[in-house]
């Protein structure tokens, strides 16, 4: 089994000789429209319509990821929702159907929840064989403080009978052509969690349009797909929704399959909590470091569990030493870490980071290949060159 490849940097790629003319020709087919996304810093663009934007890792230099640096994933074109016209309908197996306005939600007790949001497919580009889907590298992740009423309090307005086991969540976005609508279901045990909220704010501001204005679901520790944006309808049910985005999408094989092979539909289960992982945020892969050393930094998170430690190797994984953990330590949020590296010699070094969590999980060298390319959490390696003294 091979280590995941060290990512090729932009500079190195451009320096590579023998770029296939067909690739260059293909690049020229992209219409040259300016890539501008309201309120965002320069982002890595996977798609412009709908918007799929990745954060470069150097934006993760703070525990909170600012709204202007936060990644964006849209399955369907973004709807325009105004505060006045916004309605949240709650129906299905409820005691009474209700329709709430934005003011109704704002009047409810407000709870603040710091939580890390990560796309299930973050890191998909590292899997071999390659998989269809967005080719995320590291940055389909971010940590924000979300605020709004608890989901269970919102549902209480409609009344929740014992028989209701799931709720289906639908946003104001709709499919183009026969594209399926984006609907996600969550079981009652997660609905009643006190950290599961309907967020109206992100880092102290109203949710930006790109992040689901005016209301989105926050499902801490679970894959980003569960965090439905532009939330407009909740339907209580005795079983999960049967649409595309619950089956076959966002499912994992119960047992790993051989790379490149299909899983039987009955062997797939709904993806819920995220994996334990860590990565470097500085320096960047292939950077030069002074002979005196450098502060290495990064983040680590573990879905619904707590990160207990991050270990660093500066010799390609032979020996490991603990990193110093940042002081913010909240369930559902990533932790920052740092490591003061004093290199023993000049020249090229391979550095690795590896997180372990409260559930006894430790990052693998490489996660099990799966047919949708979810939950990449392989040990990251970067290459740094120490300049001669």
């Amino acid at each position, binding site marked *: 089994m091979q280590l995941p490849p060290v990512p090729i940097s932009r500079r190195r790629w451009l320096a590579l000789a023998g770029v296939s003319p*067909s690739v260059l020709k293909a690049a020229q087919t992209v219409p040259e429209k300016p890539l*501008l996304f*309201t*309120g965002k810093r320069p*982002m890595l663009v996977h*798609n412009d319509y709908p918007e799929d934007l990745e954060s470069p890792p150097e934006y993760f230099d703070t525990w909170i990821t600012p709204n202007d640096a936060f990644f964006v994933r849209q399955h369907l074109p973004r709807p325009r929702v105004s505060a006045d016209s916004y309605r949240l309908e709650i129906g299905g197996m409820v005691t009474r159907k209700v329709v709430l306005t934005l003011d109704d939600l704002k009047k409810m007790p407000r709870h603040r929840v710091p939580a890390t949001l990560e796309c299930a497919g973050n890191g998909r580009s590292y899997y071999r064989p390659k998989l*269809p889907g967005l080719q995320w590298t590291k940055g389909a992740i971010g940590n924000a403080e979300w605020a709004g009423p608890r989901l269970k309090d919102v549902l209480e307005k409609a009344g929740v009978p014992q028989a209701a086991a799931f709720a289906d969540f639908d946003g104001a976005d709709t499919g183009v052509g026969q594209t399926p609508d984006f609907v996600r279901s969550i079981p009652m045990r997660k609905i009643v969690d006190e950290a599961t909220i309907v967020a109206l704010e992100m880092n102290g501001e109203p949710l930006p349009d790109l992040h689901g204005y005016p209301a989105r679901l926050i499902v801490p520790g679970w894959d980003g797909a569960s965090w439905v944006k532009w939330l407009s309808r909740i339907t209580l049910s005795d079983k999960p929704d049967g649409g595309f985005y619950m089956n076959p999408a966002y499912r994992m094989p119960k047992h790993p399959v051989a790379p490149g092979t299909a899983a039987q539909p009955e062997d797939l289960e709904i993806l819920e909590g995220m994996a334990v992982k860590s990565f470097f945020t500085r320096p960047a892969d292939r950077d030069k470091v002074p002979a005196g050393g450098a502060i290495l930094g990064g983040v680590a998170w573990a879905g619904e569990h707590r990160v207990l430690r991050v270990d660093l190797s500066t010799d390609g994984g032979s020996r490991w030493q603990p990193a110093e953990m940042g002081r913010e330590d909240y369930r559902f949020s990533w932790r920052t870490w740092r490591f003061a590296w004093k290199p023993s010699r000049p020249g090229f070094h391979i550095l690795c980071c590896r997180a372990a969590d409260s559930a006894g999980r430790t990052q693998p060298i490489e996660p099990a290949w799966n047919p949708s390319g979810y939950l990449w959490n392989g040990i990251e390696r970067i290459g740094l060159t120490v300049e001669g003294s």
Partner: protein
Amino acid sequence: MIVGDLLVALLLAAADPAVIEKGKAEEKRSCLPCHGLRIIHGQRLPRPTWERELDKMVRWGAVIKEREALLEYLVENFGHDKLTPPLPLSEDARKK
């Protein structure tokens, strides 16, 4: 012998610039109504996977008239053996 000739014919067809151009035009015509092309161009997939992606898009409402040309274009430019260029960075669009 016939199989061999067929293979040669297929290989020639794959390299035919006219077919590739037709596929490129078909991509614009059949894909752009619903989504940008960057999500396609960022992927590197073998032919059978591109075929499955086309099947999925047809199920989701895409009207593909030149399927073979589109497939050849995708395999020629975005096959699993092609290099992936770096992602473009958007412009700074923060409120000043």
